[in-house]
């Protein structure tokens, strides 16, 4: 059966050990995690975990059910086929030799990202977007020489009814 990418988001109790329960469930049952993001929400005591996973339909069904079974998981949603917005962010430290400096800034402009740190031989670029945008940007920057990169996983929210 075909494995598709799924973005699963859940509200969990903000308590010690909860992340471990969620991650342990994935490792213990052989589910895959491509990326993972966790942070507090506006509701005191609740955090949101967003997990990107690759799985076939029966496995996705199990992932959702198993997550729901955890006592500290309040709500689970698979956003893959929902009307939702998804973003990730990356900080990219790129080599900025004199002959590339202008080109890099043009790319930054086109992609509407920001340079947040400048040195004699580097820029650090902050970029936000969906996965496709980040990949495209990295493909353009790679020839200049990427020194370091830090990348978040996907975060996502379902759109409110208009």
């Amino acid at each position, binding site marked *: 059966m075909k494995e598709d990418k799924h973005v699963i988001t859940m509200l969990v*109790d903000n308590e*010690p*050990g909860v992340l*471990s*329960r969620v991650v*342990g*469930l994935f490792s*213990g049952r052989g589910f895959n995690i491509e990326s993972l993001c966790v942070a507090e929400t506006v509701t005191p005591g609740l955090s949101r975990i967003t997990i990107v996973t690759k799985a076939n339909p*029966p496995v996705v*069904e*199990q992932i959702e*059910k*198993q997550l*729901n*079974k955890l*006592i*500290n*998981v*309040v*709500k689970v949603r698979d956003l893959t086929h929902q009307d939702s917005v998804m973003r990730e962010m990356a900080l990219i430290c790129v080599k900025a030799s004199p002959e590339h400096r202008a080109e890099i800034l043009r790319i930054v402009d086109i992609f509407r990202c920001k340079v947040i740190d400048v040195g004699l031989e580097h820029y650090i670029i902050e970029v936000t977007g969906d996965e496709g945008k980040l990949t495209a940007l990295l493909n353009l920057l790679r020839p200049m020489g990427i020194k370091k990169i830090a990348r978040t996983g996907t975060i996502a929210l379902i759109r409110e009814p208009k």
Partner: protein
Amino acid sequence: MEMTGAQILMAVLKEEEVDTVFGFPGGAVIDIYDELVRTDIRHILVRHEQGAVHAADGYARASGKAGVCLVTSGPGATNTVTGIATAYMDSIPMVVITGQVPTHLIGNDAFQEVDIVGITRPCTKHNYLVKSVDDLARTMREAFYLARSGRPGPVLVDIPKDVANQSAKFKPQEDIKIKSYQPTYRPNMKQLKKIVGLVKKARRPLLFGGGGVILSGAAEAFTAFARKTHMPVTTTLMGLGAFPGSDPLWLGMIGMHGTYRANMSTGNCDLLIAIGVRFDDRVTGKIETFAGNAQIVHIDIDPTSIRKNVGVAIPVVGDCLQSLNELNRMITEDNQNAFEEDHREWLAQIEEWKKQHRMAYDQGTETIKPQFVIDKLFEITEGRAIITTEVGQNQMWAAQYYHFDGPRQFITSGGLGTMGFGLPAAIGAKAAQPDRIVVDVAGDGSIQMNIQEMATAMQSCLPVKVLILNNGYLGMVRQWQELFYEKRYACTTMDHQPDFVKLAEAFGAVGLRATRPEEVIPVLKEGLACEVPVIMDFVVEKEESVYPMVPAGANITEMLLV
């Protein structure tokens, strides 16, 4: 009212109507033990913490109440892990209380410190570390609520030593509601109506029950449903006793060592009604062809059990008892006669299978057949004993040759397959049901895993009977080696055995031995009549195997027969 943590703990145990605690003391739980002995709660002192959990488990299975066990931090806690995993796999309600080093030492590698909450996360239904005495009462109440409700399971509460001796205000009883935990008891009526529709149409239906039927107290409703619809019945190992073993509609157990007719019926039925089961690999064999001619209906309280292993035509999430009560209500009197007519041919076919391959053995005059021992045990106890088992051949023969008429009579580690389970579980069962005869059917290998609990049985005056089917082998593995590894008996011979009779006597118990067929009945009679714990050592045919057998991964209808 101000109370110490230990006092609060006792108050909650009383609220939860706990009458027996199985445990082993240690530094981190001294304060708790100091309070425990001031209550009227019975404490059963085990000889190893694994024994405490299995005993609490046996108590829970025999009584339907939550088992409680209390151990100290570090090694005390880690010794409970096998028992917790055993209870988790079989969905047994249990609260395990572990001591922990004082809060200010947690994380410092203190003496007897271990992260038991971290260790048991994947094998408990839920677990807690209580960081403040103010949270203790609520946490304990939640633990009991979680252990018993929905799909039951073990819950661990880790209590640091300082939490046990600090004081807090105690508020009696409160309603426990957990927003993120709301098990679905009430089945979907539309789905149930569809099931009734299928039942009416089916010509070769099969009712298939599991441990969930027993856990939800639905054995009676399950039996009534089968009789109303005149439907043949099989169960999993965990479901034995959900339907009377003496009923003509009973086919015997399904699965790897199920009966010929139960497995053939599964392969040939056109409707499989699965209730409180989880389609374990030991039940289904090759999953792709399991019940290949049938529409499958699956009722279970745990949504994750549904469509985990097999696809189903009608899934129902709900309590087995409520679902069966509704189904029984929907099936009217005038349906009933039709069912008998509709299933006549099917039942005749099943009878034919029964005649082709009966469960049988040939008891000669020289060596004792293990099946014969169980057969006679069944006769002499008139089918009324509570049987616990170890794991392996002993377990399968007990399941095949003791016919259980009621629920909570057969106590076995089904999911995890834990050797060493039977003796402590028998002690727990005897504590719960002191008026019943409790027999641990054991092998000579597995009994040695927790044999130390004989001292527990002696000290607590719990006269359990241990029946050893002694073949000098780790028999089930030997059987696999015989069948699939060209008789290479790698490390399965128990070349040195203790003298089990003398061992029993060393514990102060009674030891009996039978080496010839004619000695079986006298030894059983004498052993069962004893008022103290007994070990009965039956020296049986060394290379007897359990049949039928479905080789691992084979289609369930492809059985090796004697």
